[in-house]
């Protein structure tokens, strides 16, 4: 099937304005008759729930934490992009659009990226108006810095806590709507199924995580803003609760999963210390603005203290390989380059999976005070975790799974192929293509939530009658029974392995075989191992406690069960894609000097998978991508 992304035609500069004008509107007095469910209250969902509530819709929102302020968006450190051109260095909406398309290795839809670039400026204004304390210069104007993959300074930041401040902004807007009565928040509530009636999304089934009660909620439209899935690798920079559950349950109800193999491996994370490790910590990419990456040229030097390796014996590999971008090379390139150095046995630190990120030059140039001002909290965090002082000794970093470029397929209106189901933020596949540039996920989450969905959802709601299908419909009972049956099944296995043990096993397969570099052989191995681990899960997992109480083991078991199905589709997607592209590197497809080789002739499409059952191959649907404004070009950062 050829998928229709419903992209507007005409000159790209006019697409969003024209589309907005052409869409139907919902009469203000009718808005409160519509009930919209928003699952996830991170940047994307929080912004959406607040904006829709403000417009007068009747919104019910959900998150699994105890407060919407704790969504994983809170952890973003580095910053958020916008094309304001305040620094007067030549930025424009067109340039942001260009960088994003190229940075994503030509696997995103042009019109969606244009819209993102266009609304990026409104986001900054909106957040400033909310009281987000962005960094300012002494004259009182907003400050900017640059980020990996861009040669202009377009990144706005709030110290090293940009995501936190943006999320608190959205959370405060949401709090205002909760107070106003337009939004009802359901915290500690996990969505475990999507309810579909006659092919249309009409509600969700959730577990109350305190009492264990299984509850259904009906809505005239369902919005998923449930974040990314890279915890499928077990160790990642994501929070412990991040899962694919909501998206995967929707996929099992017919929503297509697009480009699942595009995962981002972030270059600047703190290396793993041992098997007890439960997550990896990201050091913001902004660190690469001033830090220089190097490893010893000679293997023998790897055990020496970094200060004892002479200048001429250091390999500043990013500066050597990519002279024009140097340490600011995009993430996929920087990650792969780090792995190459370690594979070449020139890694440093325990386990030799690490490279140095060195501030000595920058401290010499601008002084320790300025470096402290710029990155102080990151240095503190690094010291807490590693017990090392990075002002004195270079940091050690290594790549880690970080972000999901893939996700549920959506059209230009952010609606999935299941009518009534909208997907926002990291949970959808939309604007990043095969590689996400730094500081653009926050931009996307807020663009989707504040400035896209409020318009596009109206176009859909104007075609449905509110409140016709409620939780009285038998589909809701059926969904509840299914959810309960799955829970009972997991609790009754009473096997020998714990959920974390099995998750670690899955993670190992995903990282080794489906991680930074993959091959037909490794992928086929993964496709054999994943079903085996899944089989073992359903026969040998030990989930303690009961279903009618707060039970974190049960929560984790459910999330792992979904990763065990989803992981297979991720590997299937990677296997079918016979090219190297952005965050997806197939070792069979590279140039002589190890750069990724993309195949536009055969793969310039979005690959959207339809789930057909665990014992059946999923079906691939394609949405061809057209590049009318930006010429397909080899992405070179040399």
């Amino acid at each position, binding site marked *: 099937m050829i998928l229709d992304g419903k992209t507007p035609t005409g000159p790209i500069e006019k697409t969003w304005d024209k589309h907005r004008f052409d869409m139907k509107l919902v009469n203000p007095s009718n808005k409160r008759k519509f009930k919209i469910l928003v699952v996830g209250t991170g940047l994307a969902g929080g*912004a959406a729930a607040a904006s829709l509530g*403000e417009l007068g819709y009747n919104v019910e929102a959900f998150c699994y*934490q*105890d*407060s919407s*302020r*704790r969504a994983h968006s*809170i*952890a973003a450190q580095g910053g958020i992009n916008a094309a304001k051109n*305040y620094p007067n260095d030549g930025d424009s909406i067109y340039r942001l659009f260009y960088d994003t398309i190229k940075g994503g290795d030509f696997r995103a839809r042009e019109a969606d990226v244009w819209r993102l670039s266009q609304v990026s400026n*409104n986001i900054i*204004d*909106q*957040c*400033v*108006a*909310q*009281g987000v*304390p*962005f*960094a*300012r*210069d*002494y004259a*009182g*104007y*907003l400050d900017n810095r640059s980020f990996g993959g861009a040669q202009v300074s377009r990144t706005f930041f709030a*110290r090293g*806590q940009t995501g*936190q401040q943006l999320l608190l902004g959205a959370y*405060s*807007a949401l*709090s*205002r709507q*909760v*107070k106003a009565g337009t939004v009802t928040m359901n*915290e500690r509530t996990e969505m475990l199924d999507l309810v579909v009636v006659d092919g249309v999304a009409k509600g969700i089934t959730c577990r109350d995580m*305190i009492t264990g009660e299984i509850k259904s909620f009906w809505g005239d439209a369902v919005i998923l803003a449930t974040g990314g899935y890279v915890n499928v690798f077990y160790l990642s920079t994501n*929070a*412990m*609760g991040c899962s694919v559950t909501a998206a995967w349950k929707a996929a099992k109800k017919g929503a297509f999963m697009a480009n699942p193999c595009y995962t981002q491996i972030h270059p600047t994370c703190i290396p793993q210390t041992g098997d007890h490790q*439960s*997550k990896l*910590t*990201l050091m913001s990419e902004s660190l690469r603005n001033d830090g220089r990456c190097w490893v010893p040229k000679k293997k023998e030097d790897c055990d020496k203290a970094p200060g004892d390796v002479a200048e001429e014996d250091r390999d500043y590999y990013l500066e050597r390989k990519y002279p024009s971008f140097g340490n600011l090379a995009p993430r996929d390139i920087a990650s792969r380059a780090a792995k190459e150095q370690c594979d070449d046995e020139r890694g440093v630190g325990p386990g030799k999976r690490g490279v140095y990120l060195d501030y000595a030059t920058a401290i010499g140039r601008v002084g320790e005070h300025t470096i402290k001002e710029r990155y102080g909290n990151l240095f503190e965090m690094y010291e*807490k*975790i590693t*017990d090392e002082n990075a002002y004195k000794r270079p940091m050690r970093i290594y790549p880690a799974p970080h972000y999901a470029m893939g996700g549920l397929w959506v059209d230009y209106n952010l609606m999935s192929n299941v009518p009534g189901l909208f997907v926002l933020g990291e949970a959808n596949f939309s604007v990043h293509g095969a590689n996400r540039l730094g500081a653009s996920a926050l931009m996307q989450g807020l663009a989707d939530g*504040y*400035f896209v969905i409020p318009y596009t959802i109206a176009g859909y709601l104007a075609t449905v009658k509110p409140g016709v299908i409620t939780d009285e419909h038998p589909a809701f009972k059926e969904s509840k029974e299914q959810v309960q049956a799955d829970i009972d099944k997991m609790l009754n296995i009473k096997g020998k392995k*714990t959920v*974390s*043990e099995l998750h670690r096993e899955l993670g190992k397969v995903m990282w080794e075989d489906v991680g930074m570099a993959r091959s037909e052989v490794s992928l086929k191995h993964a496709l054999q191992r994943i079903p085996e681990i899944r089989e073992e899960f359903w026969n040998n997992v*030990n989930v*303690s*406690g009961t279903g009618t*109480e*707060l039970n*974190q*083991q049960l929560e984790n078991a459910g999330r792992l069960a979904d990763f065990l199905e989803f992981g297979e589709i991720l590997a299937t997607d990677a296997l079918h894609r016979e090219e190297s592209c952005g965050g997806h590197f197939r070792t069979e497809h590279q140039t002589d000097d190890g750069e990724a080789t993309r195949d536009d002739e055969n793969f310039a499409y979005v690959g959207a998978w339809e789930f057909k059952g665990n014992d059946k191959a999923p079906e691939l649907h394609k949405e061809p991508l057209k590049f009318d404004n930006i010429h397909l070009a080899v992405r070179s950062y040399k």
Partner: protein
Amino acid sequence: MNLTLHVWRQAGPKDKGTLETYPAKDVSADMSFLEMLDEVNEGLIKSGKQAIVFDHDCREGICGMCSQVINGKPHGGQDRTTVCQLHMRSFKDGDEIFIEPWRARAFPVIKDLIVDRTALDTIMQAGGYVSCHTGGVPDGNAHPIGKPVADYAMDAAECIGCGACVAGCPNSSAMLFTSAKVAQLAVLPQGQHEAKARVKNMTDTLQAAGFGNCSNHLECEASCPKGISVKFIAKLNREYIKTIAG
């Protein structure tokens, strides 16, 4: 290293709860405190017992979800450190460690180490925002904000809403938390029109939610993992006086 843990176990809000003792063996200095508990839980599950439940999510010290009183100190009492960022290297072989939930009337225990902190959201809903509508706001540079002001607002805005200040305070006061938000918004040009109503509504809600009053013990500042300063409480008080003065 080998440690002995005394952990608060409580099946539900109505249960009385007790301290139970578990050994933690072969703990590596590189582990975080929560990773140490993960390992203990693995052992409990394998021996047919229920795992200890505790709140956590980001494990990066930023989401504010983790909340444990360790040896009498919220978040373990290490300067500017959340439990998830506390590392085992700060303990030594043979240590006995007491692990309990936040204790405050406004934070009822849900189970084991998990408490209900909804009251903090209620305070935010009472006015912890600027009433701007999405869209149609002026350009971000339309109102220049001097760097010292922006920095002051940011210092206040760093609060992660964990509630350690409440747990550390002998009166279970949530003044530090509330003052941080009030101070942030009070110094910025946005939302000035509602500044008085904000302080009043947030303070009234704080009292209604069952939090105690501030009597200057400064335990909140000592417990806060983000180093939020008590100077913001002084700011809150000044802002409050303005509302009385008309």
